[in-house]
């Protein structure tokens, strides 16, 4: 075989136009349509279940409100409220729904790159003319948008389902009135669900790129998501906006009480429960009032014996009206974090670290 000289034509190569982005549309759709179908089927089944159980919940709520409207019958009202509280109790605290974004992220996001790396198909995909980092970007971004959209549509059902718990003045009817900041439900309502699904997908894709094996990447995604969700709920969320402070004893049930402390003559006295000596001196009639929802005696009762002696109760809280600002803040930083995680993933693909 004789060598045939090949004329190099650098001028052609310099003006080489990249393969158009839209060509990846078919590729992404063909390779991930089954994942998308599974997500839609999964969310659809959950939505149907929520619509059915939600119907019961809303029925029970309407019944309870009707029964407790003054003049309330002394027996039917408590019966109806108990019936409402008992309806689908397993979902009242968010239940399995809180795991949904993590599951979508883990099963849709983690295998995306991990499977390519595990089976070796990245050697095919990343040596095509489209180029590896553009390939990764053209897969991750549309899928992230589609999944977040699906989650957003699904969360409309969640919003509807949990409505009865958050109606103002539920307390007056003897019904539970949750603060809209209730940690277990905050991420399921508003834009929270879509944002958390998005970040779960982004975590999954990065975990897949780093770990390179499907099953460990899925496990890592769920673990990292849980850690982030707990950190956000426990440490970050209370600080999105500086809390309102009041000396009023009438804190609405919808408020998210963050801290309570007492002052005397303008000076800090104690926070939370009073010291035993103080308590025995001013509240000799024993533990005041019935226990509140969190097991502590109601502050109002404590105030009854302490206020006359010059003590003032201060409460810092997030009013319910801040629900949407909090949703936008949380959605905002989750969006930024997701974009960052996806950018890191694409950068890792570009770095071609095999």
């Amino acid at each position, binding site marked *: *075989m*004789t*060598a*045939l*000289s*090949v*004329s*190099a034509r*650098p001028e052609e*190569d*310099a003006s*080489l*136009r*990249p*393969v158009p982005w839209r*060509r*990846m549309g*078919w*590729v992404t759709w*063909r*390779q991930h349509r089954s994942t998308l179908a599974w997500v839609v089927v999964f969310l659809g089944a959950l939505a149907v279940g929520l619509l059915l159980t939600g119907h019961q919940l809303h029925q029970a709520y309407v019944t309870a409100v009707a029964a407790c409207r003054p003049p309330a019958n002394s027996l039917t009202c408590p019966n109806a409220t108990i019936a409402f509280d008992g309806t689908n109790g397993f979902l009242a605290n968010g239940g399995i729904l809180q795991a949904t974004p993590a599951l979508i992220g883990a099963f849709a996001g983690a295998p995306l790159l991990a499977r390519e790396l595990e*089976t*070796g*198909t*990245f*050697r*095919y*995909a*990343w*040596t*095509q*003319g*489209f*180029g*590896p980092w553009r*390939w990764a970007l053209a897969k991750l971004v549309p899928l992230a948008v589609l999944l977040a959209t699906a989650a957003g549509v699904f969360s409309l059902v969640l919003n509807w389902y949990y409505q009865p718990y958050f109606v103002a003045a539920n307390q007056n009817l003897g019904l539970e009135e949750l603060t809209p900041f209730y940690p277990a439900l905050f991420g399921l309502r508003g834009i929270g669900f879509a944002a958390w699904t998005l970040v779960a997908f982004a975590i999954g894709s990065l975990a897949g790129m780093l770990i390179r094996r499907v099953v460990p990447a899925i496990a890592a995604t769920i673990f990292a998501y849980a850690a982030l969700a707990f950190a956000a709920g426990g440490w970050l969320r209370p600080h999105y906006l500086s809390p309102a402070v009041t000396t009023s004893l009438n804190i609405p049930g919808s408020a998210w009480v963050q801290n309570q402390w007492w002052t005397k003559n303008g000076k800090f006295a104690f926070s939370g429960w009073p010291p035993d000596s103080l308590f025995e001196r001013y509240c000799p009639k024993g533990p005041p009032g019935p226990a509140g929802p969190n097991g502590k005696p109601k502050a109002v009762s404590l105030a009854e014996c302490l206020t006359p002696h010059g003590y003032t109760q201060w409460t810092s809280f997030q009013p319910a009206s801040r629900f949407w600002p909090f949703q936008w803040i949380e959605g905002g930083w989750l969006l930024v974090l997701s974009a960052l995680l996806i950018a890191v993933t694409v950068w890792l693909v570009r*770095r*071609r*670290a*095999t």
Partner: protein
Amino acid sequence: MNVIESRGLGKRYHSTWALRECTVAIPAGHVAALVGPNGAGKTTLLNLATGLAAPSAGGVTVLGGRPAGSPAALDGIAFVAQDMPMYKNLSARDMLHLTRNLNRRFDQQYAETRLGELGIPLKRKAGKLSGGQQAQLALTLALARRPRLLVLDEPMAMLDPIARHDFMASVMTAMVEGKGEGEEGGVSVVLSSHVLAELERVADYLILMSRGRVQVAGEVDDLLASHRMLTGPAAEADRYAERLSVVHARRGEAQAHLLVRGTADDPVAPGWEAHPVGLEELALAYLREPAAAALPGPDRARRGNASQPEVSR
């Protein structure tokens, strides 16, 4: 033009160097065989050349100076990786469509005709094809991109002897066809293998690697012309060898075989016979002597026509 050119190229995985100080220039227009034992660094070199890995040291360009992994480089190279990775759940037709969407050029007509001739049903999933068919599908996808460089990593490792033969015949046909296209230029082939016997018929350029370094590089004809096997009495072997450039010596009870550097015109001592060497024989001799090397000088590597290897020991 050099289809692959590297200078001081190295790749380290954690603390081990898979490839070290690799300076090589593979000229265009050849079927170049990258030969060496497992772990010699063949796959690493090909991964670096195709942009699948980033070098830890040095650099590598392809197709006359395009940086490895750059869009221009990816556009001109088609890579068939070891084990022919493919999406098992996609049909052959989908794999064609996928590859067409991922590249600027794709000859759909050629690909469909070729698969038809090979009897590979378009509807069948890639994972359901036989090993030989998967290899042929992977090769078809690569060739339909009309590459200027076809890189094959261990293409024969997974194949039975008949499939091997068919596969290499396809590569050779494609290379000849590619040359006929005139302006488009020929297609060059770089393939790695640790199966020496298969290469003798197809390769006209040899790069021998061992322990992460390039040991021998040059055109097969030149390498064969500049080496020969001397056979003579074992008792005289040591004394005779001192005067020669011996790559590898094999001693029997009565006779010794010395693979030496030298042309057919060189005089032979009385009692000794000279034979031309085969590619496999030559490669084995060098692989058994990792310290021996036959490399083109740097000036030749740059010019890209390594006519006569410079010999050093």
